[in-house]
């Protein structure tokens, strides 16, 4: 049985069925928010899962979804987006896509190294959520974090330089692809261990609540934690669902369910593959949304963020999405079915949004082309900038280990090591 937000609110006392917009919709069942995917995605996703399990081609199910979606899209969602908003979303998704494509090129040319995980295909999730946040809201991500950082406002130059390992990177070359941090934009990382970001995000949300209740500051900041389907089998995920609901923290748990954890299919590794169901088990709403449709994601995100800002607690959002490339640039991606990839490629979120904007006369091809060109130039410029930037100096090796560098201890001369200028230059005997 599908869960909309209303299904679990009674647990928390009185429920207000607040609608964001007048209820114009095709599907009859009442729901507390527009863009409900109840009648749409749950049955088809069930079909999809069962199809996978039975090893039959999922073609039929997906096409039906696309058809239904098209119809509902134009009737239900056309009043939900203005031209400006549409162009912002489009630009953000194009930025994510171009940037990641450029990363692949640079990697194969040897400019980038180590582990690089690309986000192609999942842009709708990042754009859909992060474009609703303010600068002081926090985002916590995993190793697949380039696009989250970009959407949150970190400049393409800073991210590209970081990937090249240059001193002008957002973390001065000390973090790398998997550790994008930006205090200015409240991008709290970039974590390599899956599940590691979830408690950290819960802590950031905890701080919002603490600031409000204990420090008596005005704080409406929410935190959005992004993670994948594989993470949902990790203990920390459940620990945090429990505590977030227990303490009613302003956090949104966003599952980017792309059905694959490297080569492990979600269905092979999970006893109950429907992750959104795990929310109500902990006392929070669990929502499933089509993650290849940025407008649907945005609708769900709006409700979840508003809930969190109102102090009503956490939400678990499962976005059904897909990564067009392998797990990382080193992954040969042999286990995924070509037909599956083709079907999701047909649901490319950027193509879908473009089609939508043009069909609903919100923008014309020319404007969209201008945006694409602008982004291409931006990404190229970012590469040039990163190329031209210097590598970190030798003295940077010992910097920033501690906020209080006295932590390096006392040297043989009895003074703190950090007071010796040779230490920071990297020429002292350590």
């Amino acid at each position, binding site marked *: 049985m599908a869960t909309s937000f209303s299904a679990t609110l009674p647990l928390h006392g009185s429920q207000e069925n607040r609608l964001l917009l007048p209820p114009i919709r095709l599907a009859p069942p009442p729901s507390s928010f527009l863009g409900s995917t109840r009648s749409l995605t749950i049955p088809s996703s069930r079909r999809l899962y069962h199809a996978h399990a039975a090893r039959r081609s999922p073609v039929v199910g997906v096409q039906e979804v696309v058809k239904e979606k098209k119809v509902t899209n134009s009737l239900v969602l056309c009043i939900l987006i203005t031209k400006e908003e549409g162009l912002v979303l489009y630009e953000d998704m194009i930025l994510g896509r171009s940037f990641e494509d450029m990363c692949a090129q640079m990697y194969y040319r040897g400019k980038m190294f180590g582990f690089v995980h690309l986000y192609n295909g999942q842009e709708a999730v990042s754009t859909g959520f992060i474009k609703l946040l303010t600068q002081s809201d*926090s985002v*916590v991500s995993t190793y697949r974090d380039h696009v989250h950082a970009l959407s949150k406002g970190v400049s393409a130059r800073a991210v590209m330089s970081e990937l090249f390992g240059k001193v002008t990177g957002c*973390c*001065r*070359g*000390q*973090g790398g692809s998997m*550790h994008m*941090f*930006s*205090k*200015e934009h409240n991008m*709290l*990382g*970039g*974590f*390599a*261990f899956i599940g*590691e970001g*979830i*408690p*950290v*995000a*819960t*802590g*950031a*949300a*905890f*701080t*919002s609540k*603490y600031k409000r*209740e*204990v*420090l008596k500051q005005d704080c409406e900041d929410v935190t959005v934690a992004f993670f994948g389907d594989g993470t949902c089998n990790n*203990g*920390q995920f459940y*620990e*945090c669902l*429990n*505590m977030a609901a*227990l303490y009613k923290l302003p956090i949104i748990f966003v599952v980017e369910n792309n059905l694959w954890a490297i080569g492990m299919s979600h269905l092979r590794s999970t006893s109950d593959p429907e992750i959104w169901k795990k929310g109500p088990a902990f006392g929070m709403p669990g929502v499933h949304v089509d993650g290849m449709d940025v407008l649907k994601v945005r609708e769900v995100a709006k409700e979840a963020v508003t809930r969190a800002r109102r102090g009503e607690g956490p939400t678990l959002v499962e976005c059904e999405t897909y990564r067009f490339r392998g797990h990382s640039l080193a992954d040969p991606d042999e286990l995924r079915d070509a037909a599956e990839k083709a079907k999701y490629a047909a649901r490319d979120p950027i193509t879908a949004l473009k089609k939508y904007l043009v069909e609903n006369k919100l923008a014309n091809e020319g404007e969209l082309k201008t945006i694409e060109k602008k982004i291409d130039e931006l990404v190229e410029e970012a590469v040039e900038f990163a190329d031209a930037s210097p590598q970190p100096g030798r003295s940077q090796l010992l*910097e*920033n*280990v*501690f*906020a*209080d560098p*006295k*932590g*390096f*201890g*006392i*040297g*043989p*001369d*009895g003074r*703190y090591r950090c007071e010796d200028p040779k230490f920071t230059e990297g020429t002292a005997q350590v």
Partner: protein
Amino acid sequence: MWGILRRSAVDGGGFSASSLRRTRFSLVSARSYAAGSKEMTVRDALNSAIDEEMSADPKVFVMGEEVGQYQGAYKITKGLLEKYGPERVYDTPITEAGFTGIGVGAAYAGLKPVVEFMTFNFSMQAIDHIINSAAKSNYMSAGQINVPIAFRGPNGAAAGVGAQHSQCYAAWYASVPGLKVLAPYSAEDARGLLKAAIRDPDPVVFLENELLYGESFPISEEALDSSFCLPIGKAKIEREGKDVTITTFSKMVGFALKAAEKLAEEGIGAEVINLRSIRPLDRATINASVRKTSRLVTVEEGFPQHGVCAEICASVVEESFSYLDAPVARIAGADVPMPYAANLERLALPQVEDIVRAAKRACYRSK
């Protein structure tokens, strides 16, 4: 002479559980303790340190299992819930990874959590957050995100608690760059170092010892002041001597002091160094002492391989080789998981006799 008299006057009680305390007045400088007028248990010292830091800074909060209504598993956080309320003293579910991560996330966002582990053995379930999210973050973010968090709890062996509750984690945490690791012994150490840990802008692992909680130590007026803080990275010379240097930390300091007494009866002057800070290690003090005495005996409770003692020995051999008159000696816990039976447990941990024997061997005085 005066030095030794002064030191033994103050720390003569050492580890003894009996209430026989020598309270000789100290006759010398202002740097020494006030005349044994006040005594404080380590438990009260820790409690008062947390209390004062919480009242000084509203961003400090306590989080852990049983810290609130139960008043603390070892009563260290007694009274804090009543005083500061449930918004600042959190009783967590049994989710070490979860609540440690939440603490780290809160520290990222600007608060100052004090995360209690019921014992540091349980920190193994959260070690990913201590090392990867806390210790490494300032570096990975190039200084943008520092983590002003303190992890505290009892470490090392207690009495008869078995293998899974008795490990000493000093060596593990002290090997990680980005962390500061402290191990207090006396009440003054406990107060000063915990206050320093809570105020520190970096992640600090604060290793207490369950058997020391009930121990009383004399405490000076200076240490009772609410702004009292001990510097991180400085060891303390508990007892001066000129024949052999004994370095140790936490509960073993008491054993070493008792050993020093026994050695003094045989004419061997042992210098006992209380490390206080495992990371950063005060190599300067240790090496200066070894250069004076020419002999080193390092003592710890943890497993011998790759332990704190190994690091100290390596450091001394590297820096003061030509001053050594005898091979460096390590006394550590036995290389076995801690047995349960009381006699076996005693055998698995360093005892005063072991320290005495090693010191005598270093002085070429034993068979």
